[in-house]
């Protein structure tokens, strides 16, 4: 009997798809060729908290979604056909039995090096690092981090810190070397491994930690988001709780690049995105970090800020955004950029709106609204 033909799963050649992970499920926004018209599909996993949904650029068809359902334990869902069907991971990220630790949720997903198809990394809360070698079906701990003799000192107590727990995020894989990894610990700082995770060291020199007794400690910082510069993994950009920074290797000391932001806006925020092909271009989405840390758009006037010179200077981009009374919060995973030219930049707010720019931030328009609280937006 002839086998039924299977419709090939290929990424859309001339349109953009966004994976919008929310507190109540996963939605998919798809554009037309011109990125003018957008359609919303979903939800997948209605009622589940989806912390992060990421597409695998190596095969063009695998999507992973890190989810947690109400009071139930965490899991990872996998699709091998761009979201048509999903299966649950057989063995989600979980700490070693006997360690005393339990994963509350998987917070961050990163596909590994291009030479490692099917390998993924996951960062969790409490802070832990996990790896899958089978496309997300099963996960094991990266013992070099989770069982590192200094991990508890770096991260602090799992029960201390912010009410929703410290998070391991911004897992960067050097495109030149699969063994070269960087991670962000929301309670701990930036750490680097050159041994595929077997050992780690903090790299936080130059980054302030104003909330600690020692404002320049070796670790204990609160990085919010890390990104490689386009085509230049020897440059890393960081949005931190205490400002904006750039690291140029082989140095180990970060340079403060927040001084060029207007004082009325400040240099704090959650997300940071780097241009896909221009290493000196990046965007941030500032938030109010004064007094009690409202974490909303300063003055109720949302804006992205773009730098074309590696952070030496910044330009406000708000055309199309509400001019007032828009108290937005954009979480660290809820800003992304597509690979088109000109690049499209997208943000998702905790008030359930997705906004996009087709012209690298010069103008913005709303793409979707009335969604639940948005945790992450990624290009699929």
């Amino acid at each position: 009997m002839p086998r039924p033909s299977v419709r090939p799963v290929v990424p859309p050649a001339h349109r953009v798809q966004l994976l919008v992970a929310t507190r109540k499920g996963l939605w998919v926004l798809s554009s037309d060729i011109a990125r003018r018209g957008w359609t919303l599909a979903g939800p997948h996993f209605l009622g589940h908290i989806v912390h992060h949904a990421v597409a695998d650029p190596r095969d063009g068809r695998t999507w992973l979604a890190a989810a947690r359902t109400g009071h139930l334990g965490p899991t990872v869902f996998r699709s091998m056909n761009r979201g048509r069907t999903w299966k649950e991971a057989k063995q989600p990220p979980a700490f070693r039995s006997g360690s005393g630790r339990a994963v509350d949720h998987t917070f961050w997903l990163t596909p590994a090096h291009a030479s490692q198809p099917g390998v993924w990394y996951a960062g969790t809360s409490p802070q832990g690092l996990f790896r899958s070698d089978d496309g997300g079906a099963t996960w094991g701990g990266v013992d070099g981090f989770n069982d590192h003799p200094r991990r508890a000192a770096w991260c602090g107590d799992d029960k201390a810190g912010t009410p929703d727990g410290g998070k391991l995020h911004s897992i960067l894989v050097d495109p030149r070397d699969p063994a070269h990894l960087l991670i962000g610990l929301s309670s701990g700082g930036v750490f680097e491994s050159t041994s595929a995770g077997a050992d780690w060291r903090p790299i936080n020199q130059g980054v302030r930690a104003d909330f600690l007794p020692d404002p320049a400690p070796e670790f204990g910082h609160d990085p919010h988001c890390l990104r490689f510069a386009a085509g230049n993994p020897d440059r890393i950009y960081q949005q931190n709780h205490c400002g904006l920074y750039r690291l140029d290797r082989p140095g180990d000391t970060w340079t403060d690049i927040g001084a060029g932001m207007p004082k009325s806006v400040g240099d704090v925020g959650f997300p940071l995105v780097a241009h896909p092909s221009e290493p000196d271009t990046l965007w941030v989405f500032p938030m109010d970090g004064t007094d009690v840390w409202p974490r909303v758009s300063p003055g109720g006037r949302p804006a992205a800020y773009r730098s074309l010179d590696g952070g030496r200077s910044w330009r406000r981009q708000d055309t199309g955004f509400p001019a007032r009374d828009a108290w937005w919060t954009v979480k660290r995973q809820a800003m992304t950029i597509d690979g088109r030219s000109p690049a499209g930049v997208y943000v998702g707010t905790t008030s359930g709106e997705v906004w996009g720019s087709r012209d690298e931030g010069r103008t913005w328009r709303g793409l979707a609204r009335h969604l639940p609280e948005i945790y992450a937006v990624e290009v699929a």
Partner: protein
Amino acid sequence: MLQGMAKATIEAGALVRVRIPSPLRSYTDGADEVVVALPVLAPEHPPTLVAVLAALEQKHRGLRFRIIDEQGRVRPHIKLFVGLDLARDLDVYVPPDRDVMIVAALSGG
């Protein structure tokens, strides 16, 4: 109730009914209760909750990790009842003709 089951079956092992809350029914094909079979070593040693959950996991893979963490602890806001009694740990016995009920807290938002 388990009446009507073959007497020989009950003597050779235990059949325990587990009541499933709605968030977990995706693991049981929508069933709000499942019955698991467990060996009984001796009448005075009925199966424990540990064994019941292990049997449940064999039938409905993935369910256990959603209610029990990797250290074998009941997750916060999850409660397990044996009959009408709240189980404080997983080593409690499940006497004959007692149901196990998994309860997820009603809070949310």
